[in-house]
């Protein structure tokens, strides 16, 4: 996995390097542009936005839109801002990510180290579930949630996100554990270690990189989900994305773009932080598991 040494064997001249750096920078600008537009305009007054240049820096910096978006903007009949919804989202995301990651890990463990007849078919069926268009599950899922008495609850949303995250988490862990030396497991079995003991003592401690990948993946997917959040949440469990949509797509009235952009960045902040903080481990984790054939 980490056999490759860091230095590349490539020979590159000065001009080539300058070219490489400029290409990389151009793309950096391309990727940053929308974020820049949102950030700059969230700090402007509405008047300045109306007459102004989208890419210009604000003449007068104002943090008012941010305060508005967080705690004062009208969402529904009450001027609560995004704050309560932020908490709803957290309460939903954390268990959903933990449960689906754990299940994925243990599924990956079973599918690689405790293979049984038909394990490939089981894995194939689970993997295919990553690829279904989610719109088709709305109605039957609603029915099931109703039967389980989970309709409109955070637990219901957690269940939904766990189910539709399982395919990916299982895939990640399966590919990762596939490369894990089976001899170690055999040795442990001979020493009398059981199923869970091996998992806890041997596999989990070395799963760092793939846990990072899985958590990042699940966290962003669950946090950003709109369709399930809108359809299965109740008045007291609506997640952030639904509130943001309520904020930005009013049917009538003045569009306060600065507040919208501030709200948008607030809604994206947790995922952004997760990516920036753990981005390094992300590539390492992908290297270790996800892109192996």
């Amino acid at each position, binding site marked *: 996995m980490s056999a490759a040494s860091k230095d590349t064997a490539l020979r590159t001249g000065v001009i080539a390097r300058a070219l490489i750096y400029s290409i990389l920078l151009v793309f950096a600008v391309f990727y940053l542009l929308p974020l820049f537009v949102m950030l700059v305009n969230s700090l402007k007054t509405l008047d300045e936005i109306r007459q102004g240049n989208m890419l210009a820096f604000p003449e007068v910096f104002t943090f008012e839109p941010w305060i508005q978006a967080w705690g004062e*903007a*009208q*969402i*529904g*009949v*009450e*001027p609560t801002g995004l704050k309560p919804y932020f908490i709803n989202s957290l309460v939903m995301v954390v268990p959903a990510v933990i449960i689906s990651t754990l299940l994925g890990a243990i599924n990956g463990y079973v599918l690689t180290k405790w293979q049984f007849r038909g394990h490939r078919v089981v894995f194939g069926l689970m993997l295919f579930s990553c690829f279904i268009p989610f719109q088709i599950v*709305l*109605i039957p*899922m*609603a*029915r099931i*949630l*109703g039967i*389980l*008495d*989970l*309709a*409109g*609850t955070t*637990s*219901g949303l957690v*269940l939904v996100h766990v189910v539709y995250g399982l395919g990916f988490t299982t895939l990640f862990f399966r590919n990762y554990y596939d490369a894990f030396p089976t001899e170690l497991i055999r040795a442990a079995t001979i020493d009398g270690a059981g199923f869970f003991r091996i998992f806890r003592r041997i596999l989990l401690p070395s799963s760092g990189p793939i846990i990072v990948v899985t958590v990042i993946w699940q966290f962003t997917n669950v946090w950003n989900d709109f369709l399930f959040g*809108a*359809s*299965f949440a*109740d*008045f*007291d469990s*609506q997640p952030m994305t*639904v509130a943001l*949509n*309520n*904020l*930005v*797509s*009013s*049917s*009538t*009235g*003045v*569009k306060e773009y600065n507040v919208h952009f501030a709200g948008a960045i607030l809604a994206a902040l947790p995922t952004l932080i997760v990516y920036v903080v753990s981005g390094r481990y992300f590539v390492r984790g992908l290297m270790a598991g996800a892109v192996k054939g």
Partner: protein
Amino acid sequence: MKRTLSKLACGAAACAIMAGAANAVSAADSSVEVLHWWTSGGEASALNVLKEDLESNGVAWKDMPVAGGGGEQAMTVLRARVTAGNAPTAVQMLGFDIQDWAAEGALADLNSVAAKEGWDEVVPAALQRFAKHEGKWISAPVNVHSTNWVWANKKIFDELGIAQPSSWDDLVAALDKIKAAGYTAVAHGGQPWQDATIFDAVVMSVGGPDFYKKAFVDLDPAALGSDQMKEAFDRMATLRSYVDDNFSGRDWNLASAMVIEGKAGVQFMGDWAKGEFLKANQKPEEDFLCFRFPGTQGTVTFNSDQFAMFSVDEEGQAAQVKLASSIMAPSFQSAFNVVKGSVPARTDVSDADFDACGKKGMKELAEANASGKLFGSMAHGHAAPASVKNGIYDVVTAHFNGEFDSATAVEELVSAVEVAQ
């Protein structure tokens, strides 16, 4: 293999039972849960009046706002909620959706409160068409929006010496003048519902009330495929030549802003546009003009926001009735509609608090109601069911964007309506 399966089934069942038990929480006693898409700005705070009203009556308000696409998102959510057996108490709804839900047997019966408060006498019959199903009141109408308005910049009209146009030819002449003076003649946002809003008015101006009814309410293929319909499409093409290059996808309120800022002459839009003008500190008859789409004077096409009441258990019914009765109270009807730009859904509300355009709207609504010239708007789902409406949208929008000519559009219209039925 069989053994494994039976074990699996066992596990799943236990799982389900546990999950169910842990979450068996009963709903609060005296409360209403309201699903709506008035999620921000003025209309949301106007709805807050209703909330406070109810709370003073001891009924808690559980807010369930879902914005997006003029209620499309909310309707999806509603389907999920009803399928889950977890329907809200009341849902903001438009036109045929109410009837469709009533036909599914999902709505409550409000007849006792309606009889007590005499709704039958004060609500226009055209609205009752949607608010009642098989003789039962099922929903409480909040407002009437009329959709065949023209909003004009008075300064531009005065500057160019344009009188208020009263026929199609007048309108074209006026638009020519505005265009020649270097303004955008028509401020428009190229979204299907906006295109269709204009189409409503144009069809009415071409063929009059009878034709409108035949085409959009009765869905008569002969009317849909007639020369008059071709004429309507031709007029749409004419109007297309007066919009700016940048119209596509524009939100309607940005189009209103063009008129407010004096960049454009007129906008064809429902009366909710008025709110934009008022918010920009403009005064009706001084800064902007409101008049009916030329050729449709005397007729009113409308849409009406209503709160459809879903069947709830007995405990919830008392609160639901309080909600319905609060919505129908003249004081709320007046307070809400002053803010919203629409007019009250009952004809006996005083117009004292309304501005010039509002007074005009109320008067014209009452007249149209009396003379039988009050029609549901096709563009806003009050003439034909959603599937037909969207089928017509497709054709109107495609034609407006130049995908085909008027003759083809007429053929497409006939077949689109047929497929959708």
